[in-house]
């Protein structure tokens, strides 16, 4: 089959997928008696129309960048890590333990320590499924899903039985010390001109940008990345070249888990300032859609994360200011995932027919 031109592959396919998801969402909104035009207006103004809206959009995007990168790194090694949700929650545990361990004097010291905690805990949570896949041949999709459930059960147990301060009613850790508080966009000199103090977007956004760069560097510039991609493309070729499959699965999954875990510095340390139940709030799963839509490239992941940040924030605004229930946000996300992920080939096929017809017409 003829291949699509590159611009169509990178830009047109996701765009059409999005429009189709939007069209169906509009139909559903119409069907339940809402006004799709108003919904779009509210979503856009709510998410992008004010510094306040951007403060939320970028906050969500930050989380999605981490989980999207996590899925991408594993994908390049041929591993489908859908355990980002659990790894992010366990990463949150790492953040909480680090933040509560010391009376941190300043966030610049607490942040690197929390990053290490988050990364190590997330990686450790990915290590078990990775080991099972590399050594025992169990399917990584199955084991990482199971580990999501185990993670959330473990967190609930720890919050209720171990980490909850005496006398506190809700299952959560104590509030982190003031020295571990990350500056929000409203508190960063320069950015504070635009953002008010109470937006959740925080310095983690810049860590996420650095992570994008780091992942790009890792995959396309280092020996390790070369080996990961070689293994992901062809296991027999990797064996021929003396690249150890066990090592590639382990390393890629550890990095992947570490990235998913690092998401916790955004939501746990940057926003909630304590560890709650279900802290990842589905961002781990959205990471799959982000990676798919971003073609597993850091730049694509970044753009896709912004889009999902917009959907998340815009959807919340829609639920707040229109009669359309907030649950519709889930529908919208679901449709975007459906079209960009599952039905990607359908769009591609239709475009392929179109381009072939055009090529024939030109010839």
């Amino acid at each position: 089959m003829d291949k699509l031109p590159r611009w169509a592959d990178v830009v047109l396919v996701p765009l059409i997928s999005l429009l189709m998801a939007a069209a169906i969402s509009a139909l559903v909104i119409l069907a339940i008696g809402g006004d799709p035009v108003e919904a779009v207006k509210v979503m856009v103004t709510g998410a992008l129309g004010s510094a306040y809206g951007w403060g939320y959009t970028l906050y969500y995007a930050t989380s999605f960048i981490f989980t999207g990168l996590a899925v991408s790194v594993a994908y390049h090694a041929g591993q489908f890590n859908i355990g980002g949700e659990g790894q992010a929650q366990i990463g949150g545990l790492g953040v909480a333990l680090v933040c509560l361990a010391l009376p941190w004097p300043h966030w610049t010291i607490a942040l690197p320590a929390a990053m290490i905690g988050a990364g190590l805990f997330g990686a450790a949570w990915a290590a078990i499924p990775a080991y099972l896949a590399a050594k025992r041949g169990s399917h990584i999709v199955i084991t990482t899903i199971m580990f999501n459930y185990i993670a959330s059960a473990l967190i609930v147990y720890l919050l209720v039985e171990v980490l909850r301060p005496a006398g506190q009613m809700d299952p959560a850790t104590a509030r982190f010390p003031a020295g571990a508080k990350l500056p929000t966009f409203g508190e960063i000199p320069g950015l504070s001109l635009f953002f008010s103090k109470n937006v959740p977007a925080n310095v983690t956004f810049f860590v996420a940008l650095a992570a994008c760069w780091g992942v790009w560097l890792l995959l396309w510039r280092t020996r390790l990345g070369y080996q990961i991609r070689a293994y992901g493309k062809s296991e027999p070729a990797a064996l021929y070249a003396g690249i150890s499959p066990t090592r590639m699965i382990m390393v890629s999954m550890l990095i992947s888990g570490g990235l998913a875990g690092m998401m916790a510095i955004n939501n746990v340390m940057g926003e909630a300032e304590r560890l709650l139940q279900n802290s990842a709030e589905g961002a781990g799963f959205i990471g799959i859609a982000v990676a798919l839509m971003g073609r597993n490239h850091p730049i694509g992941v970044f753009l896709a994360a912004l889009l999902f940040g917009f959907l998340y924030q815009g959807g919340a605004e829609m639920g707040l200011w229109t009669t359309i229930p907030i649950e519709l946000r889930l529908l919208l996300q679901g449709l975007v995932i459906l079209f960009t992920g599952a039905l990607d080939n359908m769009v591609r096929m239709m475009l392929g027919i179109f381009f072939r017809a055009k090529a024939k017409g030109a010839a």
Partner: protein
Amino acid sequence: MNPAQDTGRQETAAPAIELRGISKAFGPVQANKDISIRVMPGTIHGIIGENGAGKSTLMSILYGFYKADAGEIIIHGRPTQIPDSQAAIRAGIGMVFQHFKLVQNFTVLENIILGVEEGALLRPSLSKARDSLKHLAEEYELDVDPDARIEELSVGHQQRVEILKALYRQADILILDEPTGVLTPAEADHLFRILDNLRAQGKTIILITHKLREIMEITDTVSVMRRGEMTATVKTAETSPEQLAELMVGRKVLLHVPKGPANPGATVLEIENLRVVDQDKVERIKGIGLTIRAGEILGIAGVSGNGQSELLQVLGGYCRATGSVKINGQEIDLTGKHSDGQSRRARGIAHVPEDRHHHGLVLDFAAWENMIFGYHNAPEYQKNALVMDNAGIVEKTEGAMERFDVRPPIPGLPAKSFSGGNQQKIVLAREIERNPDLLLVGQPTRGVDIGAIEFIHKRIVELRDAGKAVLLVSVELDEILSLSDRIAVMFDGRIMGERLPAETNERELGLMMAGVTGSGEAA
């Protein structure tokens, strides 16, 4: 000449297939340019040409996969439109693809009726197919167990199922695309007997290949294609391999690379009592011994699947074994931590694997990424402790591509976009330019154009002349005979014996490959 007579003559002598002025372009590439052929009924017509000459495009047009930009197809004297493969089947055309289109976990019978089941219930179709299968098997030597599952069958038998599928669909024109590419010599011989029978029964066969020997052996007429054009159509009896090769490549080609006498030096490789047991506990190599000296090519002949692949893999570091293997007098690790590709390369073993698509190359990687594959840890490819020197690698790749005449010389092109011969040159450049002590070469010219074969053979001989040891594994006896300084024959995991090329012939080697020992010197 009177018109009545004229039509009468056409009735009897109409070609089974006639193509007139077929042209097809893909974008700027003219894959077929004004091609006309006539294939008479009851003959075998060969179409020969290098990879990319347009043979497969032409057949795809005939089978309805592509629509020609211009030209017409005339079948048994009737102009015929073939918009899809269903129409081709209705017109009596059957196609056997290079890569079989069979459902692996269906039985032979189920595959045969797939798509032509009559009615909702399978039983009547199956029993009808069983009867006609029995009939076909007797008629054409096409015996296959109708109840065997495809995945249990050898490649040769799978191919017979493809032929049976076409015949069951009443095909009287059969197109075979590179049918022997996947077959052992014995299977190929059997296939040719089948084709002979089919011809005798009046079927028309078009055989697409790039192997001269097959053309000479079985066809009645042959058309040569080069760069999308039909350069000649000749009677096979009136041509020679040399002439065909020249027509294919457009210049004189050496079918046998000249080489001087070997000048063997110190022993480089010494194998003793090597055994390999595979995952299913089947003993693949049953205790063999071999030595190769510097400046010597040892050729291993044998039907594929008799342990040669395992031998290469053990030496290449990705197959476990017991026994002893010494390189330059030093034992190498066969099972432990140092039995991987990296350790082997560190010991001066380079490996051009049998299967370049699965092992030798990462097809999605660019040429420059493939040019360091396996040697990616070498210090000259690193910029600093952290990152690789990508720009430098691209530059080195440009040089290697020029030295090895890789076309097109574009380092950024993915490996899968190169032709077979050029892919093989990439692998060869990578392995030979590391200047190894021992070069392992498996099927160096499988799926490679004639022009490139000459080049590849020259390079292997050059490496030998530079005082390196070469272990050559090939199922092509021609290749073994023309390149080797010594020949060992493998059969059923054993070495049946060693011969000098000057003192043996295809017949003797063929017998040894079939497990018949002449002198009882089997190891």
